[in-house]
């Protein structure tokens, strides 16, 4: 393959090439990184992707608009709710639909729960990559509670299919709000517990501070979004910049880092979990009444046109670009995958570091191959 040849070392050099993945415990799926190593130091890295390519965008073109929603669940499979939210938001935008306030609040709750769930997976796997085993299980215990809430709301735990164009398919079940509140109330204590394990830990600090540094300017240049961008100190969040689903009614902070290293991104994500809890508390406190579904035609036929709509997914800006030709199926439905674009900066971030740092950086980018390969 020409991929390999382009990275072949010179015949008389001490450098070696190594294919890191696609079957490797720490590449979060089927990522393959072609590494050129000088000892353990990375001279060059080249991500090779596409092992999980399923042609999702092609499949979208044959589905009805509501029929695409289950497919979006499978993009970033750790954050199905925000994927749903981005898709239905895009279609609602092209349709000119306004979502009822109760539906918007339910969406925000699902999205924030999903953000917490996604960040807990990230923390568990990131810590596991760096060698700490136990946080993986502690975080998954919390995630299971969130998945229980999802299951109760929409009947699935992972691939939620939880939103529809125009609103929400279901009303909340009796007692869901109480159970959600119970979860939200105990969750900050758990985050504090995880932080006791890691934040001050000298080994954790050694492994993350100054690793995978990316400056604010080059983060923008590389199109990073989400925690990797905020870790570099850019205060930018789609929820604040283009508030959707009435995010402007909630009071929350955007945490930012200072140095753009792995430790800062870690702190940013930990703080994001707390901020999500804050949003959830506000949602639960002032959950509006009313319908959960707007008046939309049964067959959704948007007018001819094109629209881009994005949400702040747990991994970064997740956007959908809908091109409609007036039919019941999208003419083109393009995903702007946050992970795909964040991963692109990997070579920049790991050049000159050690193999162990590559793991830390892959972990800190929080990639999900389902979204990268689509």
């Amino acid at each position: 393959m020409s991929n390999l040849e382009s990275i072949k070392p010179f015949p008389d050099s001490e450098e070696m090439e190594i294919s890191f993945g696609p079957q490797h415990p720490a590449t979060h799926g089927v990522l393959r990184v072609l590494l050129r190593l000088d000892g353990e130091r990375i001279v060059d890295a080249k991500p090779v992707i596409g092992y999980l390519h399923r042609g999702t965008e092609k499949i979208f073109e044959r589905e009805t608009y509501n029929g695409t929603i289950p497919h979006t669940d499978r993009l970033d499979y750790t954050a199905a709710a925000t994927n749903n939210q981005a898709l239905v938001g895009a279609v609602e935008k092209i349709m000119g639909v306004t979502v009822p306030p109760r539906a918007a609040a339910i969406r925000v709750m699902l999205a924030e729960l999903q953000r917490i769930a996604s960040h807990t997976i990230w923390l568990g796997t990131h810590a596991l990559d760096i060698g700490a085993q136990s946080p993986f299980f502690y975080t998954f215990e919390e995630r299971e509670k969130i998945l229980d809430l999802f299951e109760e709301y929409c009947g699935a735990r992972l691939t939620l299919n939880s939103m529809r164009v125009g609103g929400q398919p279901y009303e909340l079940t009796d007692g869901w709000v109480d159970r959600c509140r119970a979860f939200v109330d105990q969750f900050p204590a758990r985050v504090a517990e995880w932080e006791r394990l890691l934040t001050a830990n000298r080994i954790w600090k050694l492994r993350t501070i100054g690793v995978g540094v990316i400056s604010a300017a080059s983060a923008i240049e590389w199109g990073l979004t989400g925690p990797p961008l905020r870790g570099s100190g850019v205060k930018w969040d789609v929820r604040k910049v283009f508030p959707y689903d009435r995010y402007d009614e909630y009071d929350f902070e955007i945490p930012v880092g200072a140095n753009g290293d792995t430790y800062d991104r870690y702190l940013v994500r930990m703080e994001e979990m707390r901020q999500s809890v804050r949003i959830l508390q506000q949602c639960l406190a002032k959950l509006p009444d009313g319908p959960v579904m707007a008046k939309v035609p049964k067959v959704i036929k948007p007018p001819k046109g094109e629209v881009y709509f994005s949400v702040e997914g747990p991994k970064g800006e997740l956007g959908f670009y809908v091109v409609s030709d007036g039919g019941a199926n999208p003419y083109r439905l393009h995903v702007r995958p946050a992970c795909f674009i964040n991963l692109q900066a990997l070579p920049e971030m790991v050049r000159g570091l050690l193999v162990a740092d590559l793991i830390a950086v892959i972990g800190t980018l929080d990639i999900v191959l389902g979204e990268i390969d689509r």
Partner: protein
Amino acid sequence: MSFWGLLASIVPFELGQGLGVTGRFLFKKKATIQYPEVKPVPKDRFRGMFGFSEERCIACHACAKACPIDIIHIQDHFEEVEVDGKKRKKKVLDRYDIDVKRCMFCGLCEEACPTKPLAIWLTTKSYEASAYERNERLYFTKERLQSWDGVRPYPGVVPPRQGQMPDDPTGGPAAGRGEPK
């Protein structure tokens, strides 16, 4: 740097703190569910194995159209039946197959079903339908959909043919949805 800061940078107190956390977890209640003996309780809306009722089905093909991956295959024909002394044309199902091995349990078929109570529903709580041979064992014809041959029903659930009704716990799949114009 203060004395305590200096001391903390030499003596790894924070590592001891971490050990304390894991040490405490040693005595906490375990989260494991011993699966075959203890079965996790699905929630009421849990999308599990299909329930299907031939009597209720009006062969409208709405579910097949709603299915994003086209795994519902329906064939029907018209028959003359006598209802209240009048002759009426009625659609009769010849074939109602679901290729469960490809199903992603999105529940859109259930949502599309116009009959009340539903003719197809996924709220059966049953999730034990694993098989060693996917092409045959996970292909459900309308007979198998009702007899559930090869599916272990969740405790308390009986196969559709024996009269298990959809609980309709969601208040109908499209509860709260405005009537389409």
